[in-house]
């Protein structure tokens, strides 16, 4: 794999994470438990889709095959997507959605902090812009995890169940693909050795306050980064892509 191909892969990984999570979060629009949360979730979804546009736009540019962010979004199939399995997990209840958001935000905040120091100027610029949005997402999702975890008996039970269910999808964030080694050597992608420890320390702090217990089993699902997805992604893509698949190039 050439450096350009590796970079294309990695940028799709970043872009697809935010694209797929954005779609999931947008599914709450009009359905959140209170209007304030409804608007907040829609804002988060819009931030994420903005980030997806930038990452996938750059990915298409690097690929140099005449595609753009829209082509990558609407005309790839599930095996072409490089997102973490975590972000394609169905929403479940409100608490589970916020748990997924928190686990992802904590990772994304650290990742962007590293990418902002990339020697690749465009990557550093996109990360620098996204980092402020994500800092807010993390603060909000972290506070909500604490509020619901350390809340009523029922909210606590639901948050613990959400954590137990989603934990096996977190390990994938840290098994760095060997395909990206060339990028690390070229200082495009910073070293990620301390990423897991720093993420764990952040989520442990929040879960302590939330009175939630991290599962002891460290089994981790993987496959998202190489295009082996769960059945949920296909259903999500059906909904997201149907219009452009039925009327390719349609604009309005």
């Amino acid at each position: 794999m050439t450096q350009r191909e590796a970079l294309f892969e990695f940028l799709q990984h970043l872009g697809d994470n935010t694209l797929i999570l954005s779609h999931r979060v947008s599914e709450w629009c009009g359905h959140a438990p209170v209007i304030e949360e409804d608007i907040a979730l829609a804002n988060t979804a819009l931030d994420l889709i903005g980030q997806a546009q930038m990452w996938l736009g750059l990915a298409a540019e690097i690929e140099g095959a005449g595609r753009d962010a829209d082509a990558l979004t609407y005309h790839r199939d599930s095996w072409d997507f490089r997102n973490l399995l975590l972000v394609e997990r169905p929403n479940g209840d409100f608490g589970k959605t916020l748990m997924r958001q928190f686990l992802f935000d904590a990772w994304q905040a650290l990742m962007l902090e590293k990418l902002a120091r990339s020697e690749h100027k465009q990557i550093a610029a996109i990360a620098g812009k996204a980092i402020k949005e994500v800092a807010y997402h993390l603060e909000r999702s972290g506070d909500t995890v604490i509020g619901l975890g350390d809340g009523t008996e029922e909210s606590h039970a639901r948050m613990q169940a959400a954590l137990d269910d989603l934990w096996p999808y977190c390990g994938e964030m840290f098994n760095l693909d060997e395909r990206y080694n060339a990028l690390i050597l070229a200082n495009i992608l910073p070293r990620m050795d301390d990423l897991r420890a720093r993420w764990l320390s952040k989520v442990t702090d929040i879960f302590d306050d939330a009175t939630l217990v991290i599962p002891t089993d460290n089994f981790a699902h993987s496959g998202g980064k190489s295009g082996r997805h769960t059945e949920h992604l296909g259903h999500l893509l059906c909904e997201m892509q149907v219009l452009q698949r039925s009327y390719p190039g349609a604009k309005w």
Partner: protein
Amino acid sequence: MSSEWPLWEIFIRGQHGMSHRHVGSLHAPDAKMAIKNARDVYTRRNEGVSIWAVEALHIAASVPSDKGPLFEPSRSKVYRHPTFFDIPDDAGSM
């Protein structure tokens, strides 16, 4: 205990405004979340540089039925408006 979150009144200082202005109200479980919700509900189009949230129950308000005694007496006191002075030209616009 009420299952409703308390109501908060939200004040935003705009990009060029000097003072915080009341923009509306929202529900939130505590002050910290009230600020966050206000950020999401009232500043998403880049309206502000500062947010105040005040729990609505802490606002003392005049009673609408007292409108007469409170406000009517001032209606007939035009001399309270500083419109009877000749402003010297070199004072400029006031």
